C-alpha cells in the first residue's frame, strides 16, 4: 500500500515525479516496539480478505471503509477492488462511487496516486459498470 511518507528532501521529490509512484513504507500500522511487525503484504491480504467475505453486510462494509480511511495510507488497488465488489454484492452503487471519492481525497497533495488507482481499477470499474466521480461531474463543485 502507499504509505505516503512525504519526504521533502530533493531525492524524495524527484522520485515522485520521475518514476511511477513508489513510496517508502514504514513498517506496521501499530507502533509496538515488541512483537512481530505486520508487513505491507499481510496488511493488504487482511483487508482484501475482510472485503471478500461473501456475505458481508452493510455495516461491515461501512465499518471497514471508515476504518481504512482512518489509517495514514492510501489503500492498494486490490483492497479497493475487493471493497467495490462488496458494494456490488450489497447493491450499493453510491457507496462504490463514494469510496473512489474518499481515496482521491485521501491522497491529499499527491495528485498522481488517484489516476494510478483508477488505471489499476479500470477493469473492475468497467466490469461492474461503476462510473467514476469525474464521469459523473461531481469531482468539481
Amino acid at each position: 500500500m502507499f504509505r505516503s511518507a512525504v519526504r521533502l528532501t530533493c531525492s524524495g521529490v524527484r522520485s515522485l515525479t520521475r518514476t511511477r509512484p513508489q513510496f517508502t513504507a514504514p513498517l506496521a500500522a501499530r507502533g509496538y516496539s515488541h512483537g512481530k511487525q505486520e508487513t505491507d503484504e499481510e496488511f493488504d491480504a487482511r483487508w482484501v480478505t475482510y472485503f471478500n467475505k461473501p456475505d458481508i453486510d452493510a455495516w461491515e462494509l461501512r465499518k471497514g471503509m471508515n476504518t481504512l480511511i482512518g489509517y495514514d495510507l492510501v489503500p492498494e488497488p486490490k483492497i479497493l477492488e475487493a471493497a467495490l465488489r462488496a458494494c456490488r454484492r450489497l447493491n450499493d452503487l453510491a457507496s462504490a462511487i463514494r469510496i473512489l471519492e474518499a481515496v482521491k481525497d485521501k491522497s491529499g497533495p499527491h495528485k498522481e496516486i488517484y489516476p494510478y488507482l483508477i488505471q489499476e481499477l479500470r477493469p473492475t470499474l468497467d466490469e461492474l459498470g461503476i462510473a467514476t466521480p469525474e464521469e459523473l461531474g461531481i469531482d468539481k463543485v
Partner: protein
Amino acid sequence: MLISKAPDLTYSRAYINGPCLTHPKARRQLVENDSRQFYIYPTKMLTSRALIRGLQSSLWRSVCSTSALQGSHSKVVDVIDCSVPQYNNRLDTPLPDRPFVKHDQLSAEQKKLKEKEKASWKSLSKEEQLALYRMTFELTYPEMRKGSDEWKTVLGGVFFFMGFTGLLVWWQRVYVFGDVPHTLSDEWVEKQTQRMIDMRINPVNGFASQWDYEKKQWK
C-alpha cells in the same frame, strides 16, 4: 418546585433513577409526561420553573431537555433523535451510518431506481447513477471541502463595529471629556522642565544627563 400535577407520594410506582429512599429529606414527586415518568428531586436552582421558562423565552429551547416541563407547552422544535443512527458529512467517514434520504422517505421514482440498482449497474445511465449517489449522500467531497465566504462577513462585521466604536469614542472625547489639566499646557511644561533641569533629576543616566550644562542645550 417542579410540579405539573398534584404531588403523588405513592412509593408503589417503579422509579427510573433510584434516589435514596431512606433519606429523611427526600420528598419524591411524580411528574408525568406522556408515556414516561420521572422522579425528580425538587432542587431549588437547577430545575426551578422560572429558570426553565427564562431559558425557553430566550430561544434556548434546545437546552431545556427536561421533557417533563416541555410536555406543558404544545410547540415542538426540531429535535434530533440521537438514539438512532445519524447521517453526517465528514471527510474521514466516507460511509455514514445511514443514507441521506431514508429508505421510507424515498419517492416512488427513487424506489424504482433502487430496484434497478439490484440489476447490473451497466444498465444505469449517468444521471441515474448520480441520482443514486445523491439519494445516499448529501454532499460530495469537493462540496464538503468547499468552505464558504463567511469569513468575509465576519471580518466586515468586526471592522464595522470597530469603526462604530471609534465614532463613539470620538464623540465621547468631544462632548463628554472636560479640559485637559493645566499642568499639561506648554507654558507649564516649560517651567517644569526647567525646574527638573535645575534640580538635576536623574543626572547619571536619566533626564538631566541629557542636558549639556555648559552649552545650556540638550545633548
